[in-house]
């Protein structure tokens, strides 16, 4: 897919370095921190942030992944019709450490309505009781529908609802870039 490049590979890597630095500054006790990526692109982002934090602070935070499919608020439409959008593939939730008392940093690529984050918070609490939950996103594109505010933002990119922000990562898309794509259909998340 083509689109206007908002962040190239260099800019993306600098942005992640800055977020990693901010996470270290805000959390003096890194042994208590866990980075939890939201499937799909939040997971490689969380992995990269964990590596950057380890390089800088000499201490690696715990790493996990959460899939929010079963926590979505648009699973079905009442009245027997099919849901508006096809349901996404369910991916693994992996939280191999106790959450209780921990500082969990949720990591996602794009923050939009906030509904994904709400679902991710609800999913987390079914696994344990974290002491606090923070949010790190690569791009905040606005249009929040819920009172959710990120703690660490890579880039604020005001968009119209007709546009889409597409984050491409080497791990999934073979290239690092953030693109602005105009899309005819509004993204439902």
């Amino acid at each position, binding site marked *: 897919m083509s689109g206007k490049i908002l962040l190239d590979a260099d800019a993306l890597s600098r942005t992640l370095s800055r977020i990693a630095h901010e996470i270290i500054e805000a959390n003096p006790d890194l042994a208590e921190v866990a980075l939890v990526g939201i499937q799909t692109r939040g997971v490689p982002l969380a992995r990269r942030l964990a590596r950057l934090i380890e390089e800088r602070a000499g201490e690696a935070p715990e790493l996990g992944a959460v*899939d929010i*499919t*079963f*926590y*979505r608020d648009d*699973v*079905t439409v*009442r*009245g*027997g*019709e*099919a*849901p508006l959008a096809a*349901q996404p*593939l*369910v991916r*693994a*939730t992996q939280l191999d450490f106790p959450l209780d008392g921990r500082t969990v940093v949720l990591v996602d690529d794009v923050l939009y309505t906030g509904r994904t984050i709400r679902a991710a918070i*609800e999913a987390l609490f*079914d*696994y*344990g009781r974290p002491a606090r939950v923070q949010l790190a996103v690569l791009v905040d594109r606005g249009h929040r529908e819920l009172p959710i505010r990120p703690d660490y933002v890579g880039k604020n990119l005001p968009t119209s609802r007709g546009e889409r922000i597409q984050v491409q990562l080497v791990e999934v898309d073979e290239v690092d870039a953030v693109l602005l794509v105009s899309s005819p259909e509004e993204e439902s998340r």
Partner: protein
Amino acid sequence: MTRIRLVQDELRPPGPPSRRHLLSIADLDRDDVERLLGTAQSFAASLERHVKKLPTLKGHLVVNLFYESSTRTSSSFELAAKRLSADTLTVRAAGSSVDKGESLKDTALTLGAYDPDVIVIRHPHVGAPQLVARVTAAHVVNAGDGTHQHPTQALLDLYTLRQELGRLEGLHVAIVGDVLHSRVARSLVEAFRLVGIRCTLVGPPTLLPRELPAETTTDIDAIRDADVVYVLRMQSERMQPGSCYVPSLREYSARWGITPERLRPGQKVMHPGPMNRGVEIDPRVADSADSLVTTEVRSGLVVRMAVLYDVLTGGPVGVRALAAAEVA
């Protein structure tokens, strides 16, 4: 000049949007099966947590309508719905207005008035789920209709086979016993064909139907070639009164009962339940480490969670069977 196009679909008046049902294995293709088993596996992961409930179907109503006795199927559908946060309502024919002579249609219309999202039905007559699908607005899941189909049992057996043996394609399963009266066998044979499992039906000649697309043999020693032996119960309740399929249960047990001596060491054994120990299955086999019976029950919960989730969200399920029923 008006051109008349002979396309049947275009001549039909626009009906309500088709809903998803699971009435028969024939409703599914290979992709549907893969998706259902994959979803079931995700649900299995959620059941290992401290909090086993998911909010997925919050606010939905699942009605379980059981006209035949059942332990496993009804309890697992009820628990599956509860684990997904749906409300459940279980109606059993015994003790309900069915005792007072209410027809299936009227019972379905009554329960349909509560606006259920899913109706799970078990009924002694073939086609009862299709009738419920026609007269209500709910998604219908067949939990066994007469000797016809029991699709969720076949799906949970596929799930069990994959969990235990690591694959489906290329396996060989011998189904032993009263195949003639078994809806489980009918669903299994179709499901095995979908995923590429070789299937041999073994039993007395009177209890082996010819029309099923599987190899048949009366020789019990044929089970030794199979990776898994799937044992069926003698379904006396479905046999015509006075009819005679086997001389006696003792005779059946002696010739076709599954004993440790008839199995290869390590050969896995499955049974949909309820078991009649000492008739079709030796208690030593039922209690052995190679028996997958309790694994099947555990699979039943997650597979039924996947089916409930799938009819409400997933692929086109049940449209084919319902369309066929409408034409008929």
